[in-house]
């Protein structure tokens, strides 16, 4: 068939936009709002996540102040419930997810030599629906109270256990704000996961075989596949909750024979793998950063990739270890205890991969590597308490105690947030063309390490001494006062670290040292283009002959591919 002539009107809208675009702030804002560029969307995802990180951090700070001593009345009980609900929901859905998927947005096309994601407009949809989902959650402060006068922000916990979420127990609209907000952000996340899978499956540069993909891209592929399987069940359960609350269905209505336990199954079938969806890309960051700062290839690429995929597979059969105390019976308890412990095997393999990469390397202790080293130590602690809690009888003693809170904060803060900081320091030069200050980076690092460990190492002990989670105060005679005070004292250090980091980012955007294309002398494709990359990423698609294409380009006499 002959190519049809392009009808003239098609070019007009473009001209109109060009002609009518005002300059200055409005034009910049307009550019960012209408963009479908994966790099801009990635940056907006990450900035959104960091803004919500500050909001969620303030909520945590308020809770810690209330718990610093016994019998304080700084935050009333009902407000405390709202704070931990918003803190949990924010940190998982509005901090973890946007940062993880934001980095994936930014990095995956660059790393595989593509010009954008497979569906750029779907990508923009995913971001905006997530952002407005987050706004919806916080709108509950206005809407939940203003409409019915019954409660403001949701107070049902980020897990929203039934039947507490039924209309009989939480009237008003606060719970609906939680439900709709998480439902809406979930749709955006599913869309982005589909987008990333399609991109990785079909848009790799010539020569970029699956076996040559950077480990980070493998981790994104794994968690995107997991997202498709575990996020829709949460959406389904939330639709059921909507039906219960608005159409009088009885899914979780125990009065009519409904089950409170099945909500827990649905929620944790999502909730537990979700932790891995957040954490596994963190492993990817570490797997990219450690080799570059050790000046070595990653140790055991194949086992590292296999461990990544195995974690993804096994993680989906561990969810009911959150439910050892609901009375599932010995068989199920044993199954979920065993499968939970099984996850420790591929995870342990990864630890040895990273240690093996560091071993004998020419280490350059720049800020990204510092954060990776702290991650290795703190993640090991998190994993060990995780295996302890997988032992069902041990869990019966400590479930819903501060020991559990300390455990998962070691995972999500001590491991995930630390890898995110490593990634921010590592890829900031690529995204902006400017370096972050190395000297300030050390301050951020040490403040964060000390603050984190003061808070969260200490937090284990009141848990062992019997302090339950989600309480807004406690009596003085339990012996928890000193431990809680120390726990709270670590918080200002972490807040200071984040403040310094934000100042450094704002300062470096204008005054940072120019980064050049490849400041860390790395070997993956994102460093082959300029910093920041042009809208089309690569002028010519770079050739890929091994897992380290830039090494091959720089050392034609000693390429990598004969050794793989």
């Amino acid at each position, binding site marked *: 068939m002959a190519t049809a002539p392009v009808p003239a009107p098609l070019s007009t809208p473009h001209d109109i936009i060009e002609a009518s675009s005002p300059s200055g702030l409005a034009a910049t804002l307009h550019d960012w709002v209408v963009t479908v560029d994966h790099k801009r969307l990635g940056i907006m995802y990450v900035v959104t996540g960091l803004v919500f990180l500050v909001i969620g951090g303030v909520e945590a700070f308020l809770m810690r102040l209330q718990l610093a001593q016994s019998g304080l009345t700084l935050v009333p009980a009902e407000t405390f419930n709202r704070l931990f609900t918003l803190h949990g929901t924010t940190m998982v859905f509005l901090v973890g997810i946007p940062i993880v998927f934001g980095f994936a947005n930014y990095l995956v096309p660059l790393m595989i030599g593509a010009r954008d994601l497979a569906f750029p407009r779907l990508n923009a949809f995913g971001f905006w629906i997530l952002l407005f989902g987050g706004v919806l959650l916080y709108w509950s402060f206005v809407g939940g109270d203003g409409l019915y006068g019954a409660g403001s922000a949701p107070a049902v916990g980020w897990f929203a256990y039934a039947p507490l979420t039924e209309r009989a127990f939480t009237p008003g609209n606060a719970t609906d704000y939680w439900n709709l907000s998480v439902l809406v952000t979930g749709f955006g996340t599913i869309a982005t*996961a589909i987008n990333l899978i399609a991109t990785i499956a079909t848009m790799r540069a010539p020569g970029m075989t699956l076996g040559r993909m950077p480990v980070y891209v493998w981790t994104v592929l794994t968690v995107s596949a997991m997202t498709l*399987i575990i996020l829709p069940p949460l959406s389904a359960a939330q639709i059921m909750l909507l039906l219960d609350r608005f159409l009088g269905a009885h899914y979780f209505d125990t009065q*009519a024979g409904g089950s409170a336990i099945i909500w827990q199954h649905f929620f944790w079938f999502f909730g537990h793998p979700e932790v891995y969806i957040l954490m596994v890309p963190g492993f990817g960051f570490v797997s990219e950063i450690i080799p570059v700062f050790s000046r070595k290839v990653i140790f055991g690429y194949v086992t590292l990739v296999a461990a990544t995929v195995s974690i993804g597979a096994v993680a989906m059969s561990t969810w009911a270890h959150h439910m050892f105390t609901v009375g599932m019976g010995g068989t199920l308890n044993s199954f979920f205890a065993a499968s939970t412990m099984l996850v420790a095997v591929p995870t342990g393999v990864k630890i040895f991969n990273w240690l093996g990469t560091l071993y004998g390397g020419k280490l350059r202790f720049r800020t990204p590597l510092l954060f990776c080293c702290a991650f290795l130590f703190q993640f090991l602690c998190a994993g060990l308490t995780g295996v302890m809690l997988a032992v069902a009888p041990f869990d019966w003693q400590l479930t819903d105690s501060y020991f559990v809170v300390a455990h998962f904060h070691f995972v999500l803060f001590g491991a995930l947030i630390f890898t995110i900081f490593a990634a921010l320091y590592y890829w900031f030069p690529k995204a902006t063309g400017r370096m972050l200050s190395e000297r300030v980076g050390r301050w951020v690092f040490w403040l964060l390490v000390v603050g984190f460990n003061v808070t969260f190492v200490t937090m284990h002990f009141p848990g062992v001494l019997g302090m339950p989670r989600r309480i807004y105060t406690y009596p003085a005679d339990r012996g928890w006062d000193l431990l809680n005070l120390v726990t709270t004292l670590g918080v200002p250090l972490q807040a200071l670290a984040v403040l310094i980091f934000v100042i450094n980012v704002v300062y470096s955007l204008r005054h940072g040292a120019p980064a050049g294309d490849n400041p860390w002398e790395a070997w993956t494709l994102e460093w082959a283009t300029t910093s920041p990359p042009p809208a089309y990423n690569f002028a010519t698609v770079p050739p890929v002959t091994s897992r380290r294409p830039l090494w091959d380009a720089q050392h034609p006499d000693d390429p990598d591919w004969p050794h793989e």
Partner: protein
Amino acid sequence: MNSAASRGRAGVIGFIVAEASLFGVFVVAYLFYLGKSVTGPTPREVLDLPIVGTLCLLSSSVTVALAARALAAARVTRAGFWLFVTVVLGLAFLGSTAREWRRLIVDRGLTIGTNLFGTTFYPLVGLHASHVILGLIMLGLCLALACSGALKAIHAERVELVSWYWHFVDGVWVVVFTVVYVIGR
């Protein structure tokens, strides 16, 4: 390789996996609450086998495949004909569901709030029906484009992707039929 086309395939496969997971939970909830209703009516008392609707929907899978194949062979008129048959069959299925719901709600008094059977039945069948409606909108668009002459052989890939979705909706109905009308009755 037409990379745009394979992108679409990968995207639709991902979408279908996510949808399957969504339906899975509603099926699990239906099976979990089977026979646990505190009050009547029970499925056995009120449900009839929707034979005609099922036959319509299953045969529409064949006709949509014929449409996709005809378009790939650049036979646009034939493709339009089979798209038309598919839409009619899909509408017939929707009609049978509507009749069933009307009978259940008006004659038998079974609503979503009556008991656990109603609670789990309407969302499961309704979720499927909403997917049928979505599929019919897409097929209807293809049909309209075929009638207007805008649909060409180069669009065969896209129509095929719509047909994948339609096959998926059919496959879900096989599961729903088995669970609700065979096992559950």
